[in-house]
């Protein structure tokens, strides 16, 4: 029968049969390739591995996997936000006088910066002589539902900056913002340039027009107000976690654990795995008013880079940023692709500005071996040479 004569049913059947044949061929190939000895060894190893891995888990205690262990004092509390000041680790003569304040994203906890004792970003900063403060946004509850971006930036952040300026007697401080905290820090710096000496923006979303990251694409069509209303003004952390898990569904929910069992007989590996596991799911609820504004004004309206964003009745003009700026991004970042950060360089009026691109992922900026050997030392060097 010629092709012209075939009806859709016959064509479908032919395609189906062709596919069936391929599957059968696959079975034949699989049988030919099957190596019983290798296979049985793998199964025996797997059982052995499971027993040993369970043994490691049974013997680990919560204190073995503690994070956020560096000594620090609370120097300010505003609502649920706390400002911590870390105890210095460097001798007095090596300490940098200009203090550094770190602002983390609202969606995760700030102790990512001090997750593992052997790869703590904060510890590296302190050993290098930096005087480190960090904002802990806390866990918002229903009573915080009306807090806006203006409140977080012009109230909470501003009080933190003023508290540090007052305590250290410095007119301007160094500000380091991470991810969404980087966006907040950039906005803050544009609104209060006189209070910031140097700005470091890490994996920071500034230009939201692209679609490289799934969050950017999905947020474009999101009716965020109905989501916020459905959760009565405060979106639970787990709802955010589901969204993040689905960005790489099998990678985040299956392969991560399958891969874990390859190495889980190593107690040190499991300690770090469990630390990360706790951090990943330790997601505070999101204040509806801020989440709504961030989604509509930035993800959907892209107002920051366009110069149309307004906070507290003032337009946020990135040209007001005239101090030294470092923008550090991760090449393999699936949450904030480099293309979302790079436009910051052209939007500011600083003459001393640097864009650093590192071959790692979003979290790898803080926890990878490259972080310790390359990324953090580069940032420290940049800050020290300008403080």
């Amino acid at each position, binding site marked *: 029968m010629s092709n012209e004569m075939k009806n859709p049913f016959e064509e479908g059947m032919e395609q189906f049969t062709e596919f069936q044949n391929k599957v*059968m061929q696959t079975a034949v190939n699989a*049988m030919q390739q099957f190596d019983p000895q290798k296979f049985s060894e793998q*199964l025996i190893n797997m*059982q052995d591995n499971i027993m040993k891995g369970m043994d490691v888990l049974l013997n680990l205690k919560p204190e073995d996997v503690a994070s956020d262990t560096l000594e620090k004092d609370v120097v300010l509390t505003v609502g649920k936000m706390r400002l911590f000041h870390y105890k210095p680790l460097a001798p007095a003569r090596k300490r940098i006088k200009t203090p550094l304040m770190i602002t983390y994203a609202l969606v995760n906890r700030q102790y990512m910066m001090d997750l593992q004792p052997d790869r703590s970003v904060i510890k590296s900063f302190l050993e290098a002589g930096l005087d480190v403060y960090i904002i802990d946004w806390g866990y918002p509850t229903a009573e915080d*539902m009306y807090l806006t971006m203006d409140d977080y930036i012009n109230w909470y952040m501003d009080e933190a900056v003023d508290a540090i300026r007052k305590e250290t007697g410095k007119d301007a401080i160094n500000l380091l913002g991470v991810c969404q905290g980087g966006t907040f820090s950039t906005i803050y710096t544009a609104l209060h340039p006189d209070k910031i000496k140097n700005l470091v923006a890490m994996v920071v979303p500034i230009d939201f027009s692209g679609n490289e990251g799934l969050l950017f*694409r999905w947020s474009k069509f999101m009716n965020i107000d109905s*989501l916020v209303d459905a959760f009565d003004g405060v979106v639970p952390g787990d709802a955010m976690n589901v969204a993040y898990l689905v960005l790489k569904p099998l990678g985040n*929910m299956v392969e991560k*654990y*399958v891969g874990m069992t390859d190495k889980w007989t190593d107690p040190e590996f499991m300690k770090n795995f469990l630390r990360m596991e706790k951090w990943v799911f330790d997601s505070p609820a999101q204040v509806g008013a801020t989440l709504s504004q961030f989604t509509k004004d930035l993800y959907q309206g892209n107002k920051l880079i366009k110069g149309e964003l307004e906070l507290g009745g003032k337009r946020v003009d990135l040209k007001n940023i005239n101090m030294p700026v470092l923008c550090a991004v991760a090449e393999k970042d699936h949450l904030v692709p480099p293309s979302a950060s790079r436009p910051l360089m052209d939007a500011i009026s600083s003459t001393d500005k640097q864009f650093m691109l590192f071959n790692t992922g979003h979290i790898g900026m803080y926890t990878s071996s490259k972080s310790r050997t390359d990324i953090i030392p580069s940032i420290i060097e940049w800050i020290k040479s300008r403080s």
Partner: protein
Amino acid sequence: MSNNPFLDYQQQFFKTWTDNMSKIPGMDTYQQMFQNATPNLQEYWKTFAPAGLTNPTEFWKNLQDQGAEYWKNFQSMVPGLENFWKTFSPMIPNMGDFSSMFPYKIPGMELYTKVFEMWKGMSNPVTFAKDFQEKYMDLMQDMFKGVLPAGANNVIGKPMELMDNCVNFYKQTLAPWMELDQGIMSRIASGDMSAYNDFFKQFNEKYDETIGKYLNMMGLGLNREANEEQMQAINAYYKAMFSSGELASTVMTSLGDSMKDLVESYQKGIAEGKSFSTFRDFYNLWYKTTEDSLLKLFSTDEFAKVFDDFADKYSQYTIAMNKVYERALSALPIPTNTDMKSLYKTVYDLRKEVRDLSRAVAGMTAPAAETKKEG
């Protein structure tokens, strides 16, 4: 069974443990395949097995028997244990439920072992093709069930079931109100996956013109608002249910294609001289092919719209139901969400007022302090 619950549980625990050990990914299949693939099975086993055991089945059976014997001996060794347990056990809820005694689970591992199931029976290429496809779709059907949080599982945990429920619900309840193309229904009946997408598209178009209009009608009389809210909640429920069905069908259609990709990738790998000789090789191929397929789907505006519509429709349903609940609760002497939101707003406004006043006071005292210092 003894008359000692604690020891019974221990025996059960050990039995379940050894049963599970024998079911470790592919252990039974391994034995079956091993026998098919290895003519000198007995010789081979002797090389690997502990001394004195002639085959793998015997090994696991012996282990189980020895375990049961051990717990029997344990009972006689600790005579006071029985009374202790009788007193103690009622204080622990659900102790009879074995899974609650040993709830530790490694996320994703169930799915990992299910991937292996697809390759069962590959020693018979004639039946394998059909089995493979059924098992692949079965795997995909359950893919999100075990790994998503409980709340999300309830919504899209069983995508095929959800899609069929939507279609059945339409046929049994909504069909008299809105007529859809019979061709689509015939294609669904014949197992054409792509027909589901057409079904949901057409459903959305026709719903608002028919039953949606009725459910959004204005009410009359004293209970007008209450009636309207109830009707709107029903409307929101239909929309949410069908939106989740549309999301499920979008994902399942893509996963149906990924099965073909998997077979193609395997054949391509073989042609390129790659080796797939272990379970992990197969798993890696499945993981990569399926994840690539999902990410390709997720990176389209079409999916983003369906996904965001799903989130929106469920939000609208929750909001509508909350209104119904709140009205029902309004007669009781308890604060509702509306009352609490009003209170939170007052607290928020007061906090800002205090902040502004503090800043004003600080502004007034700072120059005064400087003047004093200078003076």
